[in-house]
Structures are given as structure tokens and as C-alpha cells.
């Protein structure tokens, strides 16, 4: 069966006590794009976006992305 990458944005936002709107303002991504990431509809993520998210959420890429 084909494996996929899960984006653990929900869990990290909960742990950091941050809303999607706050993250959007910090990272510079639109709510629509963050929503696409959060719902697992994204096809790919740029390294620059990944770096910005990890810095905003103070985490490692492995915390944000998980192979399932």
C-alpha cells in the first residue's frame, strides 16, 4: 500500500497553545494554505515553508512531518 506523509500541525498548535491565525501571521502564509496543509491536501511543501513553520513552532521537521 502507498505510504503518505502526515502533517502534525493540529497537535503542535495545541501543544504550543497557538491558533492557526497566529501561526499564519508569524509564518507569512495565508490561512487557506495552512488549511490545505492541516487537512492533508497538500501535494508538496517547499523547504522555505518547512523552515518557517519549524521556527514558528520551535520544532524539528520530524515533529511536523510523519510517514504513515
Amino acid at each position: 500500500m502507498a505510504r503518505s506523509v502526515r502533517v502534525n500541525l493540529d497537535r503542535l498548535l495545541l501543544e504550543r497553545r497557538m491558533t492557526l491565525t497566529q501561526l499564519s501571521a508569524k509564518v507569512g502564509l495565508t490561512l487557506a494554505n495552512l488549511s490545505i496543509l492541516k487537512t492533508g491536501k497538500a501535494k508538496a511543501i517547499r523547504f522555505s515553508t518547512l523552515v518557517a513553520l519549524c521556527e514558528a513552532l520551535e520544532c524539528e521537521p520530524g515533529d511536523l512531518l510523519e510517514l504513515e
Partner: protein
Amino acid sequence: MPDSARMLTQVVKRFLDFVFILSIAAVVIWPVLMLAFWLNLIGGVDEMRIETYLGFSLAQPDGAQLLHGKGDLDVVSASRYAWLLSYGTREVLSVISLFVVIQLRAVFKSLSDGGAVTAGDASRIGKVGFAIVAWHAIAPCLQYLGGRVVLADLESNVAGLQLHPALELDLIGVFTGLAVIVLSGVLLEAARIREEQALTI
């Protein structure tokens, strides 16, 4: 999309809307007229001139060929089969035309709404390509068949004039259809890449 291209898209879309109405009328009205003529409600089959694609040659009294060629000729024939085949051919080609117009209309509507070419548009363009190939494959067969049926009924009383069934195979038309099919595959791939790009965060 640049303004000039957007304007041109609008113009083509309106033209296709007009052609769509004409095509619908042709597909619907033609069979009704055929039935009316067949039942002698409006004139009769015997009074109809049948347009048929035929080859012809004219010889001089000494037997030397004076001229030859092929083209659409109006033939007076009492053959109901020839009449039915001739006008039935037009109906078949009208249906293919209507199919093409419907596909192109959908593509241009999508483009005039400001969107980029989608996978659905690419698929429709592919169908247009298949229709072009089908047209250029079917039309010559119907031309030849129609000619044979008409000539079977026709008695030529002009000395030196010979008529024979003919067909015109447009290879450029066939390859144009094939090229459109290939291009639709390219557009499909482009639409897929665009969708992937849109969902790249």
C-alpha cells in the same frame, strides 16, 4: 491572461455559441425535412437533386480524353437509397460537427471565466482530435458509397461522358486530428503540473 487574449477568447466563445445554435438546428431540422420529403409531404424524392462526389471524364469523338476530374456534382436521380444516403451523410457529419462545437464551447467557457486550462479541458480537446480523425475517415467512405449508389441508378446519355465513384482522402486533416490528440496529452500533463503547483505550500 493578457487583455487582448481575453477579448479574443470572448469573441470566439460568442461565435461558438452562435455555431452551436446553428448546429442544433441542423441536426434537428434536417431529419424532419428528410422525413417530410420521403413521405412526399413537401415536394417529392423524384424532384430532388442529389449532391454526390463523383469522378468524371469526357472523351472526344475520336476517343481521346478531353478533360477529367472529380468534385461535387448535382445529379437528378429517382433512387430513394441514393437520396437517403446523401442526406443521411450530411446528418452524420452534422452530428460530428455538433459534438466538436459542444467540446470547444465548454473549453472556451472555462477559459473566458478566467481559469487556466484544466484536465477536463485537455480531455475535451482530445475528443475534438478524435472527432477530426473520425470525420476524415468516415467522409471519404460515405462519398464513395454514395457515388456507387447514385451511379447504379443513373443512365448517362451523353456520348463520351463517363462518371465513376470517387473519394477525397485528406491526409492533412487526419494528421491534424492526430496532432490535436497529442497536444491534448501535453495540455493534460500541464494541467496536472499546475494542480500540483497550486497545492505546493
